[in-house]
């Protein structure tokens, strides 16, 4: 078991302290709330989908550094991505967190630092929550 300090790598800390998409007002077409009952993370993900692409993506809520950094990376990576690809991209991010794929694959390079979570099983749900909430949001009908 790795010591927990290792989870707070510089890349994650940077996203935690300067998150992308946090509390950014957008004209949301889709939104969902998610929570992690064990630790109390709460997150709302808002999405603007138009012309077959993610036009805007934001999140808000009271969540831990891991959840917040993961959400920030999600906002960075999924912006401008075509709808046809986002389910697969999200699945790959969640596979990375779960340790099901390698972190050196090119298409996931921008959030490869999330791979550290796999060594900290109790924190996996923190990192997964934004992605799960995003999927719930886009599966809902338009706002």
């Amino acid at each position: 078991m790795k010591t927990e300090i290792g989870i707070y790598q510089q890349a994650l800390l940077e996203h935690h302290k300067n998150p992308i998409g946090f509390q950014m007002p957008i004209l949301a077409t889709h939104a969902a709330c998610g929570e992690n009952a064990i630790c109390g993370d709460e997150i709302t993900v808002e999405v603007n989908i138009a012309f077959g692409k993610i036009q805007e993506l934001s999140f808000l809520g009271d969540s831990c550094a891991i959840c917040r950094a993961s959400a920030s990376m999600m906002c960075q990576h999924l912006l401008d991505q075509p709808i046809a690809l986002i389910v697969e991209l999200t699945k790959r991010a969640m596979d990375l967190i779960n340790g099901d794929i390698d972190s050196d694959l090119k298409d996931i390079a921008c959030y490869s630092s999330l791979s550290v979570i796999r060594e900290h099983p109790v924190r996996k749900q923190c990192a997964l929550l934004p992605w799960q909430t995003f999927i719930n949001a886009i599966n809902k009908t338009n706002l």
Partner: protein
Amino acid sequence: MASTSIWKDDFPIFSSHAHPKLCYLDSAATCLTPKRVATAMYHYQCYSHANSHKGLYKLSANATELVEKSRSKVADFLNAPTKSELVFTSGTTESINIVANCFVAPKMSAHANIVISSAEHHANILPWQKICKAHGAQLRIAPLTLGGLIDTMALSALLDENTLIVAISHVSNVLGGINPVAEICQLAQKKGIAVLVDGAQAVAHGNFNLTEIGCDFYTFSAHKLYGPTGCGVLYAKGEHLTQMPPYILGGGIINKVSFEETSYINSPLKFEPGSHNVIGIVGLVEAIDYLNDISWFEITHHMSDISAYLHHKLAQLHFIQPLLKHNRDEQLLPWLITFRVEGVHAHDVASLLDSENIAVRVGHHCAQPLHKLYDVNASIRVSLGIYNSYQDIDRLIVALNNAYQLLVIREFE
């Protein structure tokens, strides 16, 4: 000056081959186990184990005698009127469910109401909520004072002729203050209303006198008293035990069974079906003996000393936001404190403390409604045991400073 605890060496978990660097600050969740307790349980299971209350042979009779002597010892510990009013259960959760389902549920109607407080553990909310919903009855919530104790007068105003029970904690597992349970019992019983007191967090304070408290039901778990998990006690007034039907049905609780009908025995054994958890009961009684041997005066003195130090040191950190602010002049500060770190999520604080071998509890501590009342999702709880000392608190303070420095978001600096 409790710079160290003279009892820490009694706990093998701190030995060099186990966790010598462990700083355990989660005793409200479960207390660590003294060697004496573990040894007593080992010896019983290896050399004396048999099915109690069933066999006629010596080994079984000895096990029966052990359980019944243990019942007497627990009665003495609680200053309960008689041992025949004590039921061994699996813990506080089961005890409350027994009372909800066997004492209250049979009397429920749509006009009835049950009174609890805002500071209850889920174990003392859910059983009452369930039976209220099933009958369309009211669950009434007594508020707290600014000091975090149950507001006695406000609770009294909720009681009426349709109140079936008042179910309250003796000590909140989040706020830690000692509620005025004797006063609440007097108020309720003047109106003919039964009172259940959840003593899970109070039991480690010792110095009990159930007769003085005057409640109808009292319950606690052994593992909050340096004993094992899976064993607890329900005290119930004899008249209630007689009236209540059994909860779980099985062997050992009957006078006579036919395929048409069953008559049940009239004793605590009615609520102890199947085989007794004798090893758990042995552990509970050994824990009581261990604490009695130390003396409750010494324990209270030590715990009060380190609690005052904990509250004092945390109050010096500008980023600590306690759920409840205590007056530093209070003579007896709670043996726990629940707080947030400004700008850092509780889960991250716990992870970083864990990296320095410091164990604390984070989350809602099975008290979500109380957290909602204080408008927080998650908090950090530090709770003390007899093995703790100033050294542990000093380590906590350093680690909290480190966590804050690493993770604080600039807007909070």
